[in-house]
């Protein structure tokens, strides 16, 4: 499987031939049939059905195994942590996109200010994202009061955060460009422990030494003491160096008198170290060195400092120092500060450490990326890597100024989240990178690398039931293919669950996907209707304005209602009919039921046969029903039968001549229809027909007299 390297199966990885082979683990103990069945479910999870050989005597006939490709979880960061990062990235990402949109519309009017400020927005974004990736850096400064503790094993930093900060410092943070080497020194101080697992590093040396410190009586006699000091100095951890130096035995009160010179030399070196000039705007409190913002001042201070070291190196006091280890150890420190290649090489383990020491002591005036790459190659030659580290590809890509490599490596090592989000850093204010990453490529289906990485990330988000809802944010930033993928994503969400359905529809509304929305409602309507929830079914089909299906439902309902139209069980349909009220437009043939219900209510109101007004209303309602073409023919007779009370009204004939004639015509039509072959015979006794006919005739007579 693509474990442990998270994002191996990206579309960017150039594949070796033949492609890598992985085991697909299952728990079936029987021999398998070669027939395998595949299905892509939810984003990029692939479900594979494996079947046992038909003849085999086993408990199970097969197993379904789910393969998650491009799974975020890579051991360093758990799935739950990845989701938290994913949630947290949404707002910074969306904010940056909306800023870009307003920026590009601005730059159309006034093209110049674009590059002046854009990187500042990117920096804000980068800081927000960085804060999601872990706690603020572990400080290796002397905040720790215990004199015997100089490195603190704090929360393990992550490669992900280290890579993000690396890209931030090289691409987005334009302010730090002049003191890039010093930023690298700080970066290594924060993340040196990451390399400790695979290699011995300065950090691991220090940690080991600290653990043994309590067992040491005369610390300066131990060669390792001088070794770790040299190593810490080589990578610029000045606070640790000074702290360690002050553990030197000559500082002890009882020894001060007879080791005066020795102590003086130790202190002199310590002072020199703490006064090291540094090309950077500021240092955090309690950190050592003297800051210079302007290069000329820095050069001047550096030359002066170097002069002091040289002077000390040539000093006559060394002869008076009788402690060999101290003398040698201190002079080695001076050599490191003087940039002696062999001392630096001896003091460092990883090529990055050697690299950093070069910036500190060999080429302090390096600025920007000039010749950084060739230096890195030299360092790698001197200290070859036995196996590759997650961060190395990104690091070398950055130093080699190859944006495509950086993107490919960060995608390969850190997965789709990283690729989708780091592009913003890579393009910050660089026209070249922007052209490279935003150019539409025919081979990708006319989308850009940027869009491709966002699509891939969105697909990974879609793979999880909790994160699919944030995929639309990324898809909406993909101009060409984002909406296409979003439609498929929305269409594949399960409809039976009300909350999920509503969340799904809200996304449709937000992105104006009306077709998808009505399709989803249609699916929900049919599902509920078929699963015995007729009310929900009708509701969702109404929402979908699916008149075709509603008309079919109307036909089905007439069948059910028809059986019970004249009796009390009609009441159970009331709730459903209530639903139809609000959207009579979309009710289709169901409109009839609504009118029928109203008619029934009016009949009930008449009750004892005295309420003239209600009776007149009921007659009007009856006439409307009988005239309405959507009233099914088979309801005519039941309706008239229900209305006998109206036809035989005592006080006066309620129906006038023309109304009575219309009803008689309908009755006539019904009698003719009876003779046709396909007539559905209503569940009605013949007496009913006769009494209706009689009542109508009587009413007609009375009405004629009245007029």
């Amino acid at each position, binding site marked *: 499987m693509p474990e442990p390297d998270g994002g191996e199966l990206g579309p*960017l990885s150039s594949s070796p031939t033949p492609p890598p082979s992985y085991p697909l683990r299952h728990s079936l103990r029987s021999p398998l049939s070669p027939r395998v069945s595949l299905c892509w479910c939810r984003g990029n999870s692939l479900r594979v059905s494996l079947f046992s050989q038909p003849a085999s005597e086993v408990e199970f006939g097969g197993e*379904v195994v789910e393969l998650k490709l491009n799974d975020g979880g890579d051991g360093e960061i758990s799935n739950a942590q990845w989701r938290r990062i994913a949630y947290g990235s949404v707002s910074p990402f969306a904010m940056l996109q909306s800023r870009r949109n307003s920026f590009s519309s601005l730059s159309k009017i006034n093209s110049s200010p674009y590059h002046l400020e854009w990187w500042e927005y990117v920096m804000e974004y980068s800081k927000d994202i960085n804060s999601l990736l872990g706690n603020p850096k572990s400080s290796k400064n002397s905040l720790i009061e215990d004199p015997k503790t100089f490195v603190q094993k704090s929360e393990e930093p992550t490669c992900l955060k280290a890579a993000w900060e690396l890209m931030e410092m090289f691409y987005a943070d334009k302010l730090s460009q002049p003191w890039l080497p010093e930023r690298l020194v700080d970066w290594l101080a924060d993340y040196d422990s990451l390399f400790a697992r695979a290699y011995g590093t300065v950090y691991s040396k220090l940690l080991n030494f600290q653990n043994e410190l309590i067992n040491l009586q005369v610390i300066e006699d131990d060669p390792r003491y001088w070794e770790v000091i040299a190593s810490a100095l080589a990578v610029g951890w000045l606070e640790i160096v000074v702290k360690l130096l002050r553990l030197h035995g000559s500082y002890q009160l009882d020894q001060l008198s007879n080791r005066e010179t020795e102590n003086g030399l130790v202190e002199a070196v310590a002072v020199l170290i703490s006064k090291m000039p540094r090309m950077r705007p500021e240092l955090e409190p309690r950190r050592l060195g003297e800051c210079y913002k302007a290069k000329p001042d820095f050069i001047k201070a550096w030359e002066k400092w170097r002069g002091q070291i040289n002077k000390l190196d040539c000093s006559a006091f060394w002869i008076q120092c009788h402690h060999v280890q101290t003398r040698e150890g201190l002079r080695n420190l001076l050599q490191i500060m003087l940039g002696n290649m062999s001392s630096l090489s001896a003091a460092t383990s990883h090529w990055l450490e050697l690299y950093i020491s070069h910036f500190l002591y060999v080429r302090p005036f390096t600025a920007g990326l000039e010749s950084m790459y060739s230096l890195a190659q030299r360092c790698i030659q001197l200290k070859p890597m036995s196996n590759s580290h997650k961060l190395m590809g990104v690091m070398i890509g950055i130093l080699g100024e190859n944006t495509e490599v950086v993107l490919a490596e960060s995608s390969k090592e850190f997965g789709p989240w990283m690729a989708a989000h780091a592009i913003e850093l890579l393009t910050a204010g660089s026209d070249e990178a922007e052209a490279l990453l935003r150019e539409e490529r025919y081979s990708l*289906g006319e989308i850009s690398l940027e869009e491709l990485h966002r699509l891939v990330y969105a697909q990974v988000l879609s793979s999880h039931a909790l994160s699919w809802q944030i995929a639309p944010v990324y898809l909406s930033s993909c101009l060409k293919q984002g909406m296409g993928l979003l439609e498929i994503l929305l269409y594949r969400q399960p409809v039976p669950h009300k909350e999920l359905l509503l969340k799904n529809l809200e996304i449709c509304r937000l992105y104006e996907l009306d077709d998808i929305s009505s399709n989803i409602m249609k699916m929900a309507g049919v599902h509920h209707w078929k*699963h015995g929830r007729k009310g929900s079914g009708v509701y969702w089909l109404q929402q979908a304005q699916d008149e075709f299906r509603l008309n079919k439902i109307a036909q089905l309902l007439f069948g059910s209602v028809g059986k019970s139209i004249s009796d009390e069980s009609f009441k159970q349909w009331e709730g459903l009919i209530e639903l139809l009220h609000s959207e009579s437009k979309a009710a289709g043939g169901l409109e009839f039921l609504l009118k029928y219900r109203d008619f029934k209510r009016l009949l009930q109101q008449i009750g004892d046969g005295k309420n003239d007004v209600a009776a007149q209303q009921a007659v009007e309602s009856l006439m409307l029903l009988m005239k309405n073409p959507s009233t099914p023919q088979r309801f005519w007779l039941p309706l008239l039968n229900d209305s006998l009370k109206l036809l035989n009204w005592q006080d006066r004939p309620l129906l006038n001549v023309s109304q009575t004639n219309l009803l008689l015509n309908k009755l006539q039509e019904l009698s003719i229809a009876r003779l046709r072959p396909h007539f559905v015979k209503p569940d009605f006794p013949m007496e009913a027909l006769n009494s209706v006919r009689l009542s109508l005739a009587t009413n007609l007579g009375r009405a004629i007299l009245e007029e």
Partner: protein
Amino acid sequence: MEKSVLKLDKGTTCTAWNYCGQRLAAGSVDGTLSVFDSPDPASSSFSRSSSVKVREVGISKVVWVPPEYGDAVACIFEDGNFSIWEEVAEDSLSVQWKLCEFFKSSSSKVLDIQFGVSPTSLKMVAGYSDGSLKVFELTNPLELKNWQLQAEFQNVIDSVSTFGKASCLSASISWNPVRGEGQESSFVMGFNSDTPQLNSSKVWEFDEAHQRWLPVAELALTEDRGDRVYSVAWAPNIGRPWELIAVATEKGITIWHLNLSPDADGRLPVERVALHSGQEGEVWQMEWDMSGMTLATTGSDGAVKLWQSNLNGVWQGQATFLPTC
């Protein structure tokens, strides 16, 4: 990271997941249809919710009906007949799987069935062992029992010639997955038969004006036209300027670009962009992922392979998975 999702019953021969991956239908050798469900959409544990003996004949393939038409499946049986079953609650009874329609084939066996959704109706294409195709249309969207035979034709470009005694071992059909308005229904289909003219994959499109199905493209080089086709798969298109169709033949897996704007004689221009003979033996199934960027294949070697296009548009194998205990 692989994870076991569920265990299948003894004798299971085929499975199919529904549109959202929340339900699995499994058919078995004794004619039992089992359905597995998960209790809620975020869970990936599944348990059997029903098990119905649909016939005394083994089920060889299960296909879900599109969700706009309810929770229903078509079962193809080993004797070449097929039927449609639906989950419904009737007259306030609890939910049950019921038979909607049984399709009896007289002389030829049905080999594959696929459903296509058009804005107005549901269409079903069935491929038969005599090399013919039947397109059925559902007349009432709420009842899966009323199917009307819309068309019957053979998988040949030249409609004049017919091949009476063709004998096909397998057929593969794949609808264009697009669901938008104003799109003509189309599908691709190929045969594995002893009649070369029937074999090659053809793209069929419904001509609304004349109410007939027309072959609009053939996905085979001239010299490969008689090659047996094992499987076809039409990729979802989220915005590419071309359609992507995978065709597995006896020569290997090929990937085709199909341009939807027809040329002068009404044919759709096609281009073969990849041929891979990576999969040993026959390829039995090919599935595109939701974006149409990754193709998963499996076949008689029992391995699962993934294929992707690199940045230069070159299709290549990305990974192979071999079932291991």
